[in-house]
């Protein structure tokens, strides 16, 4: 009977979606819930103890207020780490936004043949399908102490000593992020731009708008959904990153993700969970702020 119904009507829709839902329940929702719970647990050197304590949160910011309010105010390690992470994230966001917008604009408005558009789009996308670590390592022969750039600078007598801050530095980290994640800006912004009715641009032109006015009054407002989605991608990835910061920072720069990773390596799960929850809250606040500007579902 049942098999007959299924043969005629197919599986019910919820059953078709069930395997996917199950994966996210098991490997996303439950782990998230456990992280929040464990962040309130106690721990010793050997084990984690089911308990209800704010210890992990208090210890995360221990001494921060005292040092901030001291005669010579200074930041505690935790705050410093969060600020570094935020600073890097905002810098990367700004660069990828401007660069991604310009590239998307070129692809959407200046390339007229669909085939060329697809080919250029693929050229931008192909590196995304290759290994991130390799793409990071590949900067080493360029930026290193004896790398191409230093060799060139010395040959040109621009510098006498090799420039040290090119690799294993904030600069290298930001460069690598821009290298890896500008695509996350290009795709959604380009997607929004492709939907802009071309006659709107002509109308603006006919009405006497300059190129700049058309850009700020027509193109940017209509690309807003893409800009928001791209921003969410870039900000959330960079905020939680520990791989890029680790490799390109020569394991010397602290980020929130790296701090969590280190604590997990030391098997200090409850404090790691507490930092994960704080990171999550920060990221969600940013995302919430950004999504107030756009409805994601409409953009597919």
């Amino acid at each position, binding site marked *: 009977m049942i098999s007959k119904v299924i043969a005629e009507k197919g599986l019910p829709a919820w059953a078709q979606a069930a395997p996917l839902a199950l994966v*996210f329940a098991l490997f996303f929702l439950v782990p998230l819930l456990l992280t929040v719970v464990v962040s309130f647990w106690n721990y010793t050197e050997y084990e984690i103890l089911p308990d209800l304590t704010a210890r992990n949160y208090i210890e995360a910011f221990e001494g921060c207020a005292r040092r901030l309010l001291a005669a010579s105010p200074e930041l505690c390690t935790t705050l410093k780490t969060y600020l570094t992470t935020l600073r890097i994230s905002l810098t990367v966001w700004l660069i990828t936004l401007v660069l991604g917008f310009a590239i998307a604009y070129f692809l959407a408005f200046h390339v007229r043949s669909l085939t060329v558009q697809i080919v250029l789009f693929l050229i931008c996308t192909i590196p995304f399908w290759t290994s991130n670590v390799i793409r990071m390592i590949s900067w080493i022969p360029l930026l290193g102490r004896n790398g191409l750039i230093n060799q060139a600078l010395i040959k040109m007598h621009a510098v006498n000593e090799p420039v040290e801050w090119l690799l294993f530095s904030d600069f290298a980290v930001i460069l690598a992020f821009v290298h890896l994640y500008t695509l996350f800006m290009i795709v959604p912004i380009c997607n929004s731009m492709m939907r802009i009715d071309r006659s709107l641009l002509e109308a603006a032109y006919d009405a006497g708008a300059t190129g700049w006015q058309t850009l700020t009054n027509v193109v940017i407002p209509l690309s807003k959904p893409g800009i928001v989605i791209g921003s969410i991608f870039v900000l959330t990835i960079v905020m939680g990153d520990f791989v890029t910061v680790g490799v390109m920072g020569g394991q010397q720069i602290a980020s929130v993700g790296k701090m969590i990773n280190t604590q997990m390596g030391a098997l200090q799960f409850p404090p790691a969970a507490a930092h994960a929850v704080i990171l999550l809250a920060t990221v969600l606040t940013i995302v919430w702020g950004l999504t107030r500007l756009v409805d994601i579902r409409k953009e597919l």
Partner: protein
Amino acid sequence: MGGRRFASFYWLSALFALFVLFLYGPMVTIVVLSFQGPEGGLTFPMNGVSFHWFAKLWNDGLPNVDIWSSFARSARLGVVVMLLTVVLSLMAGLAYRRGFTGSNALFYTVIASLIMPSIVVSLGIGLEFRMLDEAIKKHAPAFLADGYDTGMGLFTSALGAHLTWTLPFGLLIMLAIFNRFDARYEEAARDLGASRWQALRHVVLPIIGPSVVGIGLFGFTLSWDEIARSSQAVGYLNTLPLELQGQTTTVTTPVIYALGTLTTAVSFAVIAVALGTILLLRRRQARRGSDVGKAMS
């Protein structure tokens, strides 16, 4: 826009060219350097051209790491992730066309998984499996608990971690496809007496085929390169990118570039096969899919 080009066209073209150079330049550099002569180092100049470092990689691997085992592990995991991503996304995509209770909640869960900082997902899955291990060791009957070590592994926790990253791409692509899908083709098939399965098999799948191949491409390549989500959830045996990440600072010979060239070659091969298949399917569609205009010619 007319025929004439705006001034912005020229400097945006230049910017685009620079951007492509920025994307591919470093990659080309390490490919070139991986053919460094036996005496050559990590940077230019090239000290001769040879396959020395590939041979060294083939014979000795990397110091302290069984690189070929992780290579095989990553490939196996990538294939499984790819298949599951395609099948689960396709099924869920079909479900979304008909609608079901909780579809919105599921959609937002998937989006949340996509933008969740990977370290948080990794930590959560790591915790989940540790707690499961504890529970089994303490409470499970002896036949289960004896000799039990951990449930964490390549095809349990790491697979799950990878799927939380690949499935959102899969589902979003599916939803985008079906948003543009003309349901009348399917209705026509049904009107002609096709069963649901026949309509899916002979009408829907051939139309969306190229995009489904695209989902597979995402599934494999994202898994093949994945680090952040599996870092705390992989168990004892590392995947290739995880090993590579650990070796970036310790390996000081071009052998690491040889490995980089090799993994990139795998990625490129997969991309080429996928794009080739997509092109082939498109051609097939164009050839068989429509007789529009045939009467005229």
